[in-house]
């Protein structure tokens, strides 16, 4: 597969050469990087066990991407105007892959190994920048291809072969667009920020952009009239002509589809010219500065060598007091402490988890306002419904997201220490870390939500708040027991899994909703609520006990699965 993609990206060799790249070096760098991706080293915990073939991993990822592709296909079916429907489609896809690029691929884009391996060699800046871009392009295309497959087939079915034949060109251009948009923003940040501050600024930029993109995904459906989608017209949204996804959609005018926004057919040229122009500017004009700035930044998590030299971290003992209050065993205390400290300082953790705090209110707002009534009326009637349950259960996303990234780290090799110290059961460390995340991230957030619920729904909702707190903890504890039986910060982050991580987080949203549905059914029956409470409490105790008793064998088994 890699060979095919390498062949694909090296097809316009003449173009790469004209941009100033050394073709031989470019091919060699890409070939090696792709080879390295396939041979990611194993974690320490797995060193004694033969690596189990992840036979179905790729297939599952392809299937998940394909399933998501069915959702994005929706505008094609409901909106008659082909240019408009494709504009919506490309907007969705462009948003999703830009988000992926920002959250999951920045490590690929800023591969700091280059500083030691490639920078000392006689490789010019343009070759280096182009190699980075094409490397990420291959990553993205691997995800975008299955994701766009349903649309491709549907286009062929609805419009015939011409439309299907045209589809790959705007699709490729769209991937390039996402790549250059993100790169250009990074370059601006690089230009404005000091190298040692770049990583922190970029980190917060990533958090904010993720929130903006997430918000925009949920506002996009407003583009078309939800009651009469077939009647939605692009004429109401003339400003779309300034949006790159419209330029991609208007390419269909080449094969005879009508363009409602008069005089905008020529914009289809931009679909081709814009990415190429971006690439020219990026590779030809900005590449030397890009490389120079990159060389000023140190390895992934270590950006502040000069700046932090004299900076002191207050030797606070608050987290230690909490570690002692919530844990009995020393191993659990150690797990609590490392999770508490490391999660505050790891940029990759912050980037992945902090946006979730914003996603929840945004998603809740979206669910509230998608009704047919106005926002004012919706809010004034809020206390009469049972949306409080939805909000309370949605708070679990924070803990789920924190748990998902607790085990991963750029410094996973430092996890050797767990194996050389007298740790009887790794589960004790895991439970300590779980409690740290619960106390540090989930509880304060849940209290905020509970305060809002109390304000809107009044004192009677206290019991619901307590039951939801219990159920959410139970649900996440079950997930941890099943999926996250790994030691904190001991597993390597793999960019290849980036796409599936986002997919998983979307899929996982459904499960706590089901648990909430049970709670909903017991709303009017106090005895059922009490029974639910007792059962949940017993189950939680059992699950946490089982999690904390995870043995080395259990853990190694979970890692090889």
């Amino acid at each position: 597969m890699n060979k095919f993609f390498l062949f694909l990206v090296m097809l316009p060799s003449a173009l790469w050469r004209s941009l100033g790249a050394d073709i031989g070096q470019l091919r060699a760098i890409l070939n090696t990087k792709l080879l390295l991706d396939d041979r990611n080293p194993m974690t320490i915990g797995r060193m004694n066990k033969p690596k189990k073939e992840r036979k179905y991993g790729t297939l599952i990822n392809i299937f998940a991407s394909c399933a998501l592709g069915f959702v994005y296909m929706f505008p094609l079916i409901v909106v008659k105007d082909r240019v408009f429907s494709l504009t919506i489609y490309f907007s969705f896809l462009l948003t999703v892959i830009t988000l992926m690029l920002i959250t999951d691929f920045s490590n690929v884009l800023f591969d700091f190994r280059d500083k030691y391996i490639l920078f000392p060699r006689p490789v010019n800046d343009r070759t280096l920048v182009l190699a980075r871009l094409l490397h990420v392009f291959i990553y993205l295309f691997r995800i975008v291809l299955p994701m766009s497959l349903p649309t491709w087939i549907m286009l062929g079915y609805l419009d015939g072969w011409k439309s299907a034949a045209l589809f790959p060109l705007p699709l490729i251009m769209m991937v390039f667009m996402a790549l250059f948009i993100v790169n250009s923003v990074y370059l601006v940040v690089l230009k404005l920020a000091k190298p040692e501050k770049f990583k922190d600024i970029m980190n917060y930029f990533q958090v904010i952009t993720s929130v903006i993109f997430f918000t925009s995904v949920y506002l996009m459906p407003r583009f078309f009239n939800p009651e009469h989608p077939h009647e939605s017209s692009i004429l109401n949204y003339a400003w779309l002509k300034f949006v790159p996804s419209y330029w991609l959609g208007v390419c269909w005018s080449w094969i005879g589809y009508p363009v409602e926004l008069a005089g905008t057919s020529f914009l289809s040229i931009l679909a081709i010219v814009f990415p190429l122009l971006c690439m020219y500017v990026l590779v030809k004009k900005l590449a030397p500065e890009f490389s120079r700035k990159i060389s000023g930044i140190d390895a992934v998590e270590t950006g502040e060598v000069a700046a932090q030299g004299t900076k002191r971290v207050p030797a606070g003992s608050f987290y230690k007091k909490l570690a002692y209050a919530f844990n009995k065993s020393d191993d659990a205390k150690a797990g609590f402490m490392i999770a508490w400290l490391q999660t505050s300082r790891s940029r990759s953790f912050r980037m992945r988890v902090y946006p979730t705090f914003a996603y929840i209110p945004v998603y809740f707002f979206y669910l509230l306002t998608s009704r047919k009534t106005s926002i004012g009326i919706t809010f004034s009637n809020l206390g009469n419904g049972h949306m409080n349950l939805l909000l309370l259960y949605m708070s679990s996303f924070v803990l789920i997201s924190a748990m998902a990234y607790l085990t991963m780290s750029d410094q996973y090799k430092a996890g050797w220490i767990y194996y050389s110290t007298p740790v009887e059961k790794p589960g004790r460390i895991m439970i300590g870390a779980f409690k740290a995340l619960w106390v540090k991230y989930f509880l304060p957030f849940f209290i905020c939500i509970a305060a809002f619920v109390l304000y809107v729904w009044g004192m009677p909702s206290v019991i619901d708040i307590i039951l939801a707190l219990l159920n959410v903890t139970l649900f996440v504890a079950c997930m941890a027991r099943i999926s996250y039986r790994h030691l904190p910060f001991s597993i390597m982050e793999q960019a290849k899994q980036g796409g599936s991580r986002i997919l998983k987080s979307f899929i996982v949203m459904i499960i706590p909703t089901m648990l909430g549905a049970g709670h909903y059914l017991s709303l009017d029956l106090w005895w059922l609520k009490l029974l639910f409470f007792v059962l949940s409490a017993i189950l939680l105790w059992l699950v946490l006990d089982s999690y904390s008793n995870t043995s080395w064998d259990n853990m190694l088994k979970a890692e090889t699965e």
Partner: protein
Amino acid sequence: MQPIITIRQLNKQYGEKIVLRDINLNIYPGQIIGYIGPNGAGKSTTVKILTGIIQDYSGEVMVFGKNLRDNVLEVKSKVGYIPEVAELYDLLTPREYLAFIGKLYHLPDDVIEDRSRKMLDSFSLLGNIDQRMDSFSKGMRQKVLITSGLLHKPSIVIMDEPLSGLDANAVILIKELLQALKQEGKTIFYCSHMMDVVEKVSDRIVLINNGSIMADGTIDELRQNSTDSLEQIFQRLTSGGNQVQKADDLAAAMNDRV
């Protein structure tokens, strides 16, 4: 005297590759053992077995008279391991990292704090105790790593290239530390490529090559009445040919380039 570590018929292989073959060794308390060998000889594998990191081996390893396989936690709590590469959670400060490690060894907080301060002070790192380690040089990290390996007062200290990245003064400090630990009756298992240091500090030298022990004895026993240095003995026992000739060939190979 009873050996503190006894290794009998130790074998280890990864797939088809045999890494250790029939290793037999008795190590006595208070000894400094220099464990040397070329790259890939099996030194690190031996070390990882002795520290309990690798547990799927064949043969018998007894530590403190107890079978390592059956008493791995007890052994780990009495062994201090200092690996070659200073992989540590460097987003933490030395104080935080040592508190974390200390807890894994079940040490009380005041003991961790007291020992950390004293040991870091000896390494002239006390002023950096509350700074994040991502701003540290390789040598500073190595000093924190050494501190973390000795924090629980181990009876056996296993060092894998402990001088890696240290400056000349720190190297002198470590050499003195080895002697001081020996005086306290601790057993030190010292892996290194630095032959001059091994020759000076070791009571006994074990040379391993291709997974087998090639030589075992004091430096005088290894010399066998010659005046050879340890480096020359090492070369004689492990090299596949004349090193001078190999260097000449290497230089010549570069001359052939177009």
